[in-house]
């Protein structure tokens, strides 16, 4: 039996966060936490000669922006318990110090899968990161798995 849900849920934006300014110090501490040494992320002088003309954040910095207060209450639940099953991230443009980043989130898809351990319902939430110029920086698809 196919999973039942309100089709109006799909593509409906449920959250737009307030802008968060990217501080150079946060990029620096992020790099330290991951033991990042690539000079295009860590060395201002070397980064100026690099492909982006200055320091940028490592691409994975995109996943550090917090969802808003209403994010989890808007993730549809099915069955017993939900798990974070993984992420699909599309990196569109580099994130730079001084960028003011917003996240806009909607339910991208809901689908059912049956495997060896039973039936699971996957809910995919897409968050799009934009900067103050309305340029897309990244799309993050959060995959939540529910056991029915």
């Amino acid at each position, binding site marked *: 039996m196919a999973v039942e849900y309100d089709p109006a849920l799909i593509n409906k934006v449920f959250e737009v966060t307030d802008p968060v300014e990217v501080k150079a110090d946060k990029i620096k501490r992020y790099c330290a936490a991951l033991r990042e040494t690539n000079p295009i992320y860590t060395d201002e002088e070397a980064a100026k000669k690099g492909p982006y003309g200055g320091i940028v954040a490592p691409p994975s910095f995109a996943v550090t922006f*917090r969802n808003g207060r209403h994010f989890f209450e808007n993730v549809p639940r099915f069955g017993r318990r939900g798990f974070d099953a993984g992420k699909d991230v599309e990196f569109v443009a580099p994130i730079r110090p001084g960028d003011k980043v917003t996240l806009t989130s909607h339910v991208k898809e809901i689908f059912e899968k049956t495997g060896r351990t039973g039936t699971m319902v996957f809910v995919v939430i897409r968050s799009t990161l934009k900067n103050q110029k309305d340029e897309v920086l990244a799309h993050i698809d959060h995959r939540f798995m529910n056991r029915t």
Partner: protein
Amino acid sequence: MTKFDQINIGDTLGPLELFVSKDQCRAYAKLMGMGEGAGRFTDDEAAKKEGLPGMILPGNMSLGLLSKLVTDWIGSSNAWLKQMSTTYRVPVQPDHAITIHGFITNKNPAEQTAEIDVWMENEEAERLVTGTATVEFRK
């Protein structure tokens, strides 16, 4: 870092051998502003109460480490990590040796992209986190 026409399907990235300490894991969790309810990332006892063997790495930290394998390979060239997908299979514990591997599975000359399988293993070669990455070789 090599150019698009110098890479081949089957080429490997890494391995990147890492030892993530509990303090490093806590520093990451703190930086992310993880507070109440994040004990599994900062405290062994809190993690055990949730049925885990001890503290674990946040999923996003694993994603960051898998990405690092690819961006280390890219170096300071203008190749671009275009996509990264991760699947969390087994909780990753700090204070254990972990190794991150990559393997080029496909090349697309029209788009100048390479597809890469990436994964994180523990000491027993158990795959804890698996994923894929796409790198675009920009002119």
